[in-house]
């Protein structure tokens, strides 16, 4: 490159193969001093593999890594740390009962005789924290601090070790909107202080906001590197998925039919006896998508679990086509025609140690044609999985690999295929696009709208306001176990919804 930029990290023709797949195919990449470089790509494009090579967790099959103009062999993470590379993983690696300082110095404690000198470490942490505006309290116990703060401790850990190149793997995935804003400010500050940053993400909004340049990876290859200031989100999305994606959901106006689901005065208590739902009533018509907006923990999970029979209700009624289904078993509810894309795909939606085939029939395995006289019909089960893979474009090496080994987007597609192909009358989609990339999100949204247009009733529960505003036809706001407002996407906006979600604004007044 030209001399005007100092290249701190350069990857030359990096290639990594896994059995049956080339995860990274001759990747070239340059990181300049003091810049924020976004690494954009779909789930399974090879971003994490690439960064794991840079951090010494994987060895490249071909290619070289250059740091400050010198070729290096990155055989272990400790070598990477020595060379000034630090990585903040998606899952934090902290010891919960330890203090912030103890966590940070772990493995490189300064000693004073035989004792560990935590005092001077804490002081240094305080200095670093002030310098980079991290606002860390060195003596707080990690157990007691928020997720956003824990992430800052992770950042501090690598700064403390003297990192100049900082790699962030999906750093905003676990954060609340407020925490995201704060993190992005911190990243900008770090770059301004001369640190070079690579951020792995598939959130276009964040890239537009903080990145200087963006390298796009698709199916293991570098597609393009763009100056963010001169690029549009649409252009980035198109490079990422390889075709035009509309970032806005196209849909016709809803044509609601008969009332399909009626919920009346629903009361639910959690296992500790706390009132989680306090008199929730609403209904959904055939052919409409009702969105439930709300901050996490205001009764959404309980509402879904009550509707699907996974949780007992205290009082009230849930009727599907006039038939009472409160307190029926999950299986009966599912057989009555309720589909459920669960919020936590790893906990509920899939048995991770089952194969793709086995997961495809998680709700139908016991019936003809998936089993006869109690014997599983393997060929029918495999055919079903193949059908799902084909029509939902699930990228998997085969039907007999473990669900655990697929990327999040493809795992989610298995669930969506299974729930939609069961042809439910009423479909519950809880956080259906959590952690998915742009291409997959648009796919999921289209599926939900197609279900609506096929005359199904759809309940969309989401913490993403964009999603609610884009996809739902009618919006209910849940707060503290009650529906506190009802509105429509055309009559409201993010700000108003945000206020309603905080319980500060009634639904009626937002209609004006």
């Amino acid at each position, binding site marked *: 490159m030209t001399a005007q930029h100092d290249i701190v990290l350069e990857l030359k023709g990096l290639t990594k193969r896994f059995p049956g797949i080339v995860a990274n195919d001759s990747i070239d990449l340059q990181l300049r001093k003091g810049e924020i470089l976004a690494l954009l790509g779909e789930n399974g494009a090879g971003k994490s593999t690439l960064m794991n090579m840079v951090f010494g967790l994987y060895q490249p099959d071909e290619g070289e890594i250059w740091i400050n103009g010198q070729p290096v062999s990155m055989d272990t993470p400790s070598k990477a740390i020595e060379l000034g590379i630090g990585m903040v993983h998606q899952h934090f690696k902290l010891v919960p009962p330890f203090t912030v300082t103890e966590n940070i110095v772990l493995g490189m404690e300064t000693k004073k005789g035989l004792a560990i000198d935590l005092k001077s470490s804490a002081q240094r942490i305080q200095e670093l924290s002030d310098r980079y505006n991290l606002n860390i309290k060195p003596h707080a116990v990690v157990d007691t601090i928020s997720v956003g703060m824990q992430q800052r401790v992770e950042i501090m850990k690598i700064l403390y070790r003297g990192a100049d190149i900082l790699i962030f793997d999906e750093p905003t995935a676990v954060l609340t909107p407020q925490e995201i804003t704060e993190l992005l400010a911190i990243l900008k500050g770090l770059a301004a202080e001369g640190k070079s940053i690579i951020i792995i993400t598939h959130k276009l909004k964040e890239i537009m906001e903080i990145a200087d340049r963006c390298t796009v990876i698709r199916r293991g290859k570098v597609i393009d590197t763009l100056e963010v200031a001169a690029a549009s989100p649409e252009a980035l999305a198109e490079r990422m998925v390889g075709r035009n994606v509309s970032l806005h959901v196209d849909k016709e106006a809803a044509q609601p039919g008969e009332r399909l689901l009626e919920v009346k005065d629903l009361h639910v208590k959690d296992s500790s006896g706390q009132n989680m739902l306090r008199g929730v009533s609403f209904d959904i018509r055939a052919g409409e998508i009702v969105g439930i907006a709300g901050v996490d923990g205001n009764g959404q999970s309980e509402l879904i679990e009550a509707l699907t029979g996974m949780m007992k209700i205290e009082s009230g009624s849930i009727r599907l086509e006039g038939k009472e289904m409160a307190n029926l078993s999950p299986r009966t509810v599912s057989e009555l025609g309720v589909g459920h894309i669960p919020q936590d795909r790893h906990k509920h939606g899939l048995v991770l140690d089952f194969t793709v085939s086995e997961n495809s029939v998680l709700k139908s395995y016991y019936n003809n044609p998936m089993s006869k006289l109690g014997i599983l019909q393997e060929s029918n089960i495999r055919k079903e999985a193949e059908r799902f893979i084909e029509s939902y474009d699930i990228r998997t*090496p085969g039907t007999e690999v473990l669900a655990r080994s697929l990327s999040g987007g493809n795992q989610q597609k298995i669930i969506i295929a299974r729930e939609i192909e069961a042809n439910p009358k009423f479909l519950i989609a809880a956080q259906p696009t959590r952690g998915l990339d742009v291409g997959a999100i648009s796919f999921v949204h289209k599926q939900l709208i197609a279900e609506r247009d096929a005359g199904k009733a759809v309940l969309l529960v989401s913490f993403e306001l964009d999603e609610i505003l884009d996809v739902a036809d009618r919006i209910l706001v849940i707060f503290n176990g009650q529906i506190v407002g009802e509105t429509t996407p055309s009559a409201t906006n993010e700000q108003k919804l945000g206020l309603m979600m905080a319980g500060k604004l009634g639904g009626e007044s937002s209609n004006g």
Partner: protein
Amino acid sequence: MAKLKSLMNVFRQESIWISIISIFLGLLIGAIVMLVGGYEPVLAYQSMIEKIVGNPYDIGETIRSIMPLILTGLAVAVAFRGGMFNIGVEGQIVMGSIGALFVGYFLDLPPVLHAIVAIVVGAIFGGLWGMLVAWLKTSRGINEVVTCIMLNWSALYISHIVVRMFMMEEGTARSKLIQDSASIEIPFLIQWFDGARIHWGFIITMLLLVGYSFYMNKTKWGYELRAVGSSKHAAHYAGISVNKTIHRTFFISGMMGGLVGTFEILGVFKYLAIAPTTSGLGFDGIAVALLGMNTAIGILLAAALFGALMYGSQGMSFGADVPGEVIRMVVSIIIFFAAAPGMLRVLFQLRRSTRRKEVSARGNDSVSH
């Protein structure tokens, strides 16, 4: 053809080699222990092998020692696959022998039928004793390990009471003998093996081994059991009744244990002794299941190893004058080394989720979880 291929695949897995290497390491360290104690390890191992396969009688008795280990291995494995730890096989064995003894001693039935009824009752006794654990777990939330251990002792003392009250053989510390019509010995095989106590339990055990594999992998109940074992939440979401599956799992597991006791009564001893402790076979089953990685073929191999070692070790004292204590030490070392990889696997299973990226076939970018 495909069957054979998949069978061979087992031996290609790295874990198989770990097991084989561990066994050799165990033998090696056992040898060192013997050397230090001033005994001849080569002679000792030679005598051990001679004891295992030296003559028809010993071959038969080796097989007889392997059989209960297969069953207890299966009992533990069923529970493992269902996500639970059945450390109560001991008690289930005792309950099975009580059931078989009752039928064998008190009922008057024609020969074959008598044995069948005794086997069924023994199995059900064991199964119900196992299900008691499951019921306490699902209804009261008591951890199965706690109840299992308590119920082991309860079963033992119940056996003492039952024998003393109903069928004590005067002047001995055991029950009266079962009737001949309930015996499950196979006379011509016993003759073949020079009097080794071979019985129909052997055939049933082999069938159960095949049945286990079929049940787990090919039936909807096996599917439910595995689903509950690997994720209770996902199973609940899928509409599987988690509690019912837990009860069923423990019933099957307990039945396997019950059959061990049943076969020992009907095929080997013909009586139930008033013993100060339980047999220990159930605990060995834990090691068998771990070493066999909960697969049918693995359990067969692991039980064969354990059974042969235990029976063969008797030869070491005859042939090489190794005292019993040293023999037990050597056998324990071998078992420890053999079972260690399995135990490590179980312990590290918890950490497997964090290693997801490495096993990924896609070299995937994992997303937020």
